[in-house]
């Protein structure tokens, strides 16, 4: 908690940037008497491009929103760029108004509405209203011909990192039972859970993975209960797919079991048990869109990438990661970086015994079939 406060402190008051802005404001408020509107217009006309970023939760959640906010913070250092941000914006008309405000009141021409639920209908409606503004949405399924050309979606193949997490988990687990805490049984989440177990099974095919679905993206109490019940059942490595893995990682540390992170780096929360984590590296995407917007290049509507493209990355290995684990993870990562690693190989069975990928037909990462995954692979204990 203290960590979070400090971070906010930095954002709010201490950073040199904020200080500068404060100085400008001080000068501004002195000038207010002379011209109320003139000041803001002047101060806001300097940037070449204004970028708006919208988050569904707090920017310091150690998770989904923080991963996006880190990229936004890095963007602020680019010259000629102004970044405006709004956090905790619900997926209602509120986000439509937040987008419109950034465009009308701040002059933003490139927007990153980062929550999945912002896409349809909110972003699509605003895109129709403001056809000259670029809307880059995280996770949505932009489809050619169906969605406007000034909208697009970006996402990353983070299951690659969950597979690597699985390798580390497979080596670390003594009980051969690992666990996955999920918010909702939707394709993105199932793909991560499956990749995690497949990674672990590449170490030892006897490993099983217990899945617990909490039901929503942010339910800290249920998430803690899930970790505790898994620890009681002998699960000794846990990862998750919820908006903020903070509670999961902290609870695992308290129970003395290992954890793998998700969304952002949570190693500070579990110095003993944190093996590594699957992290987003959204700056790659943000920079690409900013450069395109600055140069007037056409908007990239469909952007996807994995480790190779620098869209995702692993947290630095934790103390508990042994030599063998490190070696296997590094070797696998090297193949992934070359782009020829296949996670979902042919002959794959789901946990009801049905063959879900025919033998000899591996699915490469870019295969859209993977984006509608609706099964759990053999060895995952749970139901979709």
């Amino acid at each position: 908690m203290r960590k979070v406060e400090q971070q906010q402190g930095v954002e709010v008051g201490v950073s040199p940037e904020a200080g500068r802005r404060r100085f400008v404001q001080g000068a501004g408020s002195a000038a207010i008497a002379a011209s109320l509107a003139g000041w803001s217009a002047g101060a806001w006309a300097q940037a070449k491009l204004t970028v708006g970023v919208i988050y569904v939760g707090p920017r310091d959640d150690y998770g989904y929103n923080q991963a996006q906010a880190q990229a936004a913070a890095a963007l602020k250092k680019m010259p000629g760029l102004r970044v405006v941000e709004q956090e905790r914006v619900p997926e209602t008309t509120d986000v439509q108004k937040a987008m419109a405000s950034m465009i009308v009141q701040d002059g933003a021409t490139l927007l990153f509405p980062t929550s999945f639920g912002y896409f349809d209908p909110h972003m699509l409606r605003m895109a129709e209203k403001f056809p000259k503004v670029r809307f880059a949405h995280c996770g949505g399924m932009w489809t050619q011909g169906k969605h406007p050309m000034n909208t697009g979606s970006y996402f990353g193949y983070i299951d690659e990192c969950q597979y690597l997490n699985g390798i580390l988990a497979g080596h670390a687990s003594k009980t051969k039972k690992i666990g996955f805490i999920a918010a909702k049984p939707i394709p993105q989440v199932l793909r991560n859970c499956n990749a995690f177990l497949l990674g672990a099974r590449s170490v030892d095919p006897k490993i099983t993975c217990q899945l617990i679905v909490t039901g929503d993206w942010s339910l800290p109490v249920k998430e803690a209960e899930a970790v505790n019940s898994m620890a009681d059942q002998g699960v000794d490595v846990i990862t998750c797919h919820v908006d903020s893995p903070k509670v999961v990682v902290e609870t695992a540390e308290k129970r003395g079991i290992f954890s793998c992170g998700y969304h952002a780096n949570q190693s500070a929360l579990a110095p003993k048990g944190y093996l590594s984590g699957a992290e987003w590296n959204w700056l790659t995407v943000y920079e690409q869109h900013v450069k395109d917007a600055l140069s007037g290049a056409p908007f990239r509507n469909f952007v996807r990438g994995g480790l190779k493209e620098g869209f995702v990355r692993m947290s630095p290995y934790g103390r508990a990661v042994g030599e063998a684990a490190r070696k296997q993870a590094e070797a696998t990562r090297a193949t992934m970086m070359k782009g020829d690693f296949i996670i979902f190989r042919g002959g794959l069975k789901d946990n009801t015994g049905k063959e879900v990928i025919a033998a000899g037909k591996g699915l490469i990462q870019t295969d859209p079939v993977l984006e509608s995954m609706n099964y759990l692979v053999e060895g995952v204990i749970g139901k979709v």
Partner: protein
Amino acid sequence: MAASRLRMSPGLEALVIPTGALAAALVLFGVFVLLLGHSPIEVYRLIWEGGFASSFAWQNTLSRAAPLILAALCVALPARAGLMVIGGEGALVLGGLSAAVIGHAMAGLWPLGVQLAMAAGAVVMGGLWVMAAGALRQYRGINETLSSLLLTYIAIALFNHLVEGPLRDPASLNKPSTAPIGEASMIGTLPGMDVHWGLAFGVVCCLALHLLVERTPWGFALRIVGGNARAARLAGLPVARLMLAACFLGGGAAGLAGMVEVAAVHGSANASLMAGYGYAGILVAFIARQNALAIVPVSILLGGLAASGGMLQRRLDLPDATVLVLQGMAFLLILASETLYGRLRARPRAEATA
């Protein structure tokens, strides 16, 4: 003469006291932002610019106020019958779900008919849900505040189960939703504005329910029940029926809010419906002192603060929590100022007689 000029009429009092409290909150907030290192004048200017200074800002404010108006009625109406119901969120989500199911089933039919059916279904669903809390109180003696809150959890669980299970549109992959009601059945925005019809529904409901409660014999009976249920019973009033009716009307308003969210915003029912409007409505109703008419300006105030909160975040890089501080200060002071009613009048009179 001097005394009568100093004396404040209740109407004037109802205007002066909350406005004064709001001004005090703004001054306090100014001190707070000064401590954070920002210029209070700049902050005030941004609040004004973000919420109220332009037609764009007003539309932003009004569209945020719209769902709060109906949600607040769910608290205010039962309160007039002496019941403290805080379960509007449950009625809202189930109302929205009913509307989505009806809208999808009737897709392609005469749009106004579909919309009326959706509204009716949502009102009945929301009304019955809150009436259940009233019935538990009336016939089983269970505290309606708690039961309505617990019923909300049940409603949300039921909603999630249905939307992610039997009612899920298979095409909604990563955001489980019911099947869409179709563009033709959507209710649009108010003419010339980017604010949906929910605002008009809310204002009309507030006016109608205000007249019902304040100007009809039925409303008079309801207020007697709210004042003293035992006395009302002794006077031969149908206490149970009045209480349940108030619950039904309140729940119906929340259900209608859910319908508006589906028919004007989302186009189907999904987890985005649970945006906390039902809970925000509790706040609005209390600030409005359970007066249906006062709900409209209070909702607009709250909507305006939310709209300008975005502005503060974007221009000054303040976290969202800063806006919550302002909201908290404003509402705490407005509630605290309730103790001033009657006193502003009493003192000058005492001086005059002395």
